[in-house]
């Protein structure tokens, strides 16, 4: 029996959607027992959400004031203490949370991490992308070492609700550093769908030319009930906030529909959308590489067609 621990990402109230995808990945190991660990100031609400996921066998909670924010240096020694209690695997999502925390955990356990795990071949053999997804490698972990991994959430479906795992509080014996202090988080509160989980995404690139012009992307997205994304060029230029960047160094997403508007299709951008079901590209350059991956392409000036699309959808 493999004992797999998933470290819950959450904001104190809600379990992050990435965790149910980690559960799906974990379930692909045969003969596995899946536990979700919730570190928080008050874990109760998040623990209940984790316990309700199909495929979760147990939920453990570590309540501490120091766990109010996910500071890797503070969480890592606690996670290590939990793992030493008898887990063969410890996984987190390949989100900014998991990418920050899990390698620190791995180093403390004296093992390597499998980054961006995208397929499970066996309990010790996995696939992951390298070179911005232009090659996929199969990696074998030596038997007997703890398997630390971050899960590429776009590669796995969300686990459905319907579980009823037992929740238990545990205490951990770990000394927590004071050298790292959380100060604040600035997050744009918006009613728009979340980029990482939305079934539809409309993304704008450098072609938009200004933050003012970028508003037509927000407007079209709203009409479609879609989340908004952006290329690095659009974020660097200040047309869109950093958390909307899609790509190798932004978010990796797998929506049903991805609409790339005025985006050339650099490999670093394409990495982020390879798993999208349908890619629509609107670009005035018929030679733009985005058309090589697009399911539906339209060669046109975006400033002509975006308003037309909006109108067509309204009518």
């Amino acid at each position, binding site marked *: 029996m493999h004992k797999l621990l998933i470290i819950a990402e959450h904001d104190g109230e809600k379990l992050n959607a990435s965790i149910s995808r980690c559960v799906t990945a974990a379930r692909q190991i045969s003969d596995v027992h899946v536990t979700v660990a919730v570190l928080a100031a008050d874990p109760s609400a998040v623990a209940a959400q984790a316990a309700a996921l199909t495929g979760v066998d147990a939920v453990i909670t570590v309540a501490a004031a120091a766990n109010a924010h996910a500071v890797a240096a503070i969480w890592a020694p606690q996670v290590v203490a939990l793992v030493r209690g008898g887990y063969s695997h410890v996984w987190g999502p390949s989100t900014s949370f998991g990418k920050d925390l899990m390698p620190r955990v791995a180093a403390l356990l004296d093992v390597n991490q499998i980054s961006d795990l995208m397929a499970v071949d066996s309990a010790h053999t996995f696939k992951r992308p*390298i070179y911005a997804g232009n090659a996929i490698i*199969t990696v*074998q972990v*030596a038997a007997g070492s703890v398997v630390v991994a971050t899960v590429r959430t776009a590669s796995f479906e969300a686990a459905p609700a319907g579980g009823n795992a037992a929740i238990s509080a545990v205490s951990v014996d770990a000394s927590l550093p004071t050298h790292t202090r959380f100060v604040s988080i600035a997050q744009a509160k918006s009613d728009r769908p979340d980029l990482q989980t939305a079934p539809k995404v409309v993304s704008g690139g450098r072609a938009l030319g200004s933050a003012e012009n970028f508003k037509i992307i927000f407007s079209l997205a709203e009409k479609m009930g879609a989340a908004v994304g952006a290329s690095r060029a659009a974020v660097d230029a200040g047309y869109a906030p950093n958390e909307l960047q899609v790509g*190798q160094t932004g978010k990796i997403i797998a929506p049903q529909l991805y609409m790339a508007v005025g985006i050339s299709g650099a490999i670093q951008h394409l990495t982020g959308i390879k798993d999208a079901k349908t890619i629509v590209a609107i670009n005035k350059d018929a030679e733009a590489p985005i058309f090589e991956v*697009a399911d539906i392409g339209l060669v046109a000036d975006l400033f002509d067609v975006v308003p037309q699309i909006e109108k067509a959808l309204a009518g």
Partner: protein
Amino acid sequence: MRKILVGIKRVVDYNVRIRVKPDNSGVVLDGVKMSVNPFDEIALEEALRIRERGEAEEIVAVSIGPDDAQQQLRTALAMGADRAILVKHDGMLEPLTVAKTLMAIVSREQPELVILGKQAIDDDNSQATQMLSALWDRPQVTCASKVEIKGNTLSVVREVDAGLETLEVDLPAVISADLRLNEPRYVKLPDIMKAKKKPLDVVEFASLNVATPGQLTATHYEPPKARAKGVMVKDVAELISALKNKGLV
């Protein structure tokens, strides 16, 4: 502060389209253009700016890699690093081994700050910063987009999925550079000439006594699944009906 250590990795240039070898044993690297990992240039640029503000005295660039990585270290020296260290090693290294090697250099050099790139664009592992800070038992700040030095502490803004997070950490610390931390300077010809005279020490990897347990083995390389060929539509009406057919609008 006295000293900043910056990591410089030699990687396949970001413009190169990588191909997998037909026998699935690796990727084709023969004759491919190599460069400094873009995030490492950003890391170095940040160190240079800190020094130029009078907040650091010396910048040491470190690379772990083959003899040819001296080229990338020369680029770092031309950008403005004061000296360089190459830990000579041929072939792949596991992330933990990279971190342990950096730790050995940190122990020798005793920097107050280490700045690395947030990931290397070849293996995309994104582990070195977190692992080095764990081994060193010091703070980590990954994906930094703004760094302020306040005496013995740093205030750092990080790019996270939700937005921008600010952490305050005590020095010494390890931070990793994200894309928007700065825009690296271009190297000018006179700087390249000057860089030739700057010290570049070569240290044999074996001399550092870092264990190489071989805990991960890459057994197979394959290209990603190709997407099915798409269709071109001629106007918005066709686009909308194509989307309707797929049930997407």
